[in-house]
């Protein structure tokens, strides 16, 4: 359901965002601007706040301090517009084990109020090669296949911003390759991508911008080529595993 937002420059922005979970501070004063065509790799050790940052951007988590803005407007004051513009995928697949692949996508489509549902469904299933098992219950599918359904769910409403948390987990070589191609192509369509991955080389091959996080703070935000990679990786090695990934 495309909303009447100014089509010119859709921009998603975190302004001084902090997020507190009880006594645990997951994000501290994070500022980030996501412009059209951006392709951002989120990088950092476990517990750096990558998932929390994506959850805050996705509107699932409300920041304890600071604001999330879509085209300068607080996303929590007009959640419907923001949610239609955002597609989010994370460790939890958001799928119902007792429904088939098609039913799961159809349900998500209804929630997003999509028109021309049949076409959208078949496009999404085409993109992620889900046709042959469309009528299988999600519970009976392998982890990698579920991951693809979950990706299809995130892409289903053709969102402007794609937030993907470890999208390559569990995918086989073929699916990995086609997902890489898909993600590389997003920029030319004017869409914005933010993703995290544990495989830095793979991320580097897709993203043009790097945002490195540590302890809930942004350490580096800039072009991939200019990133002080050695320093960032050394920082990671000296760190133990954190509480929240």
């Amino acid at each position: 359901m495309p909303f009447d937002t100014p089509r010119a420059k859709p921009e998603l922005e975190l302004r001084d965002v902090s997020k507190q979970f009880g006594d645990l501070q997951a994000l501290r004063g994070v500022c980030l601007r996501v412009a059209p065509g951006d392709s951002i790799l989120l990088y950092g050790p476990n517990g750096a706040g990558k998932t929390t940052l994506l959850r805050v951007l996705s509107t699932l988590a409300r920041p304890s301090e600071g604001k999330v803005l879509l085209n300068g407007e607080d996303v929590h004051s007009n959640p419907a517009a923001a949610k239609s513009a955002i597609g989010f995928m994370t460790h939890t697949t958001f799928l119902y084990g007792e429904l088939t692949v098609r039913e799961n996508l159809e349900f998500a489509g209804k929630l997003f109020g999509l028109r021309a549902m049949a076409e959208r469904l078949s496009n999404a299933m085409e993109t992620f090669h889900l046709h042959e098992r469309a009528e299988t219950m999600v519970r009976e599918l392998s982890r990698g296949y579920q991951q693809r359904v979950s990706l299809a769910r995130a892409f289903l409403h053709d969102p402007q911003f794609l937030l993907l948390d470890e999208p390559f987990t569990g995918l086989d070589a073929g699916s990995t390759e086609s997902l890489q191609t898909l993600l590389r192509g997003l920029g030319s369509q004017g869409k914005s991508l933010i993703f995290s991955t544990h495989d830095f080389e793979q991320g580097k091959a897709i993203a043009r911008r790097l945002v490195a996080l540590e302890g809930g703070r942004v350490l580096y935000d800039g072009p991939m080529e200019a990133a002080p990679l050695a320093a960032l990786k050394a920082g990671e090695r000296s760190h133990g595993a954190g509480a929240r990934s």
Partner: protein
Amino acid sequence: MKKTFPQTVHLAVTLAALLVSLYFIFLYAPQESTMGEVQRIFYIHVSSGNMAFLAYFLTFFGSFVYLWKRNESADDFAYGSAEVGFIFCTCVLITGPLWAKPVWGIWWTWDERLTPTFFLWLLFVGYLMLRSYVIAPGRAALLAAVVSTLGVVDVVFDFWVIRMKSYRGQHPAAVMGGGENSGLDPRMWVAVFVTFVACLLLFSYLVRQYMRVAALRRQVARLRQLRDSSSGA
């Protein structure tokens, strides 16, 4: 608050009021003609009962402010009121039977005052259990606020239902609705009032301490995290 009414003064006033209320209960108030000495438990019983209902309402009030303003100390106030209110409510349920047994000959009866008090006690139990069993610590305050809001509306229905059930009341109708017909000696009224004020002071002191401890605990957690993150970098 901190400057105008330091907590040491608060504590001293509370203790003094409690002592004074003991004087009023045991020396000033006259002995009740039919029930005898045991009736003196009435002053503590009634005050605790009123405090328990007041505390539940204050829990709701704190929750409401929290939902509206997202102010952490509003939530501390709600939680503190519930904990202290639970103790007052337990106190009613203990002093009640202690008084009832010698006077009515039974420990308990499901009448129109005991029953809603017991329901209130159950609501406190649910609220407090929820607070300690929520998995994600950041969510406890919100969920508890929702529970106390539903609970406070339910208390209204409890009274409605109990009235419709029209239990034959054993319970003396004094204090809340009784007024002049209740036949209380004026000196007893004074003792009731003094005890209630003492309970109010005790309640406010305990909740204040609770809020202070909660704020300190948060501060410690923040400082500890700051230390951990700066020593790592």
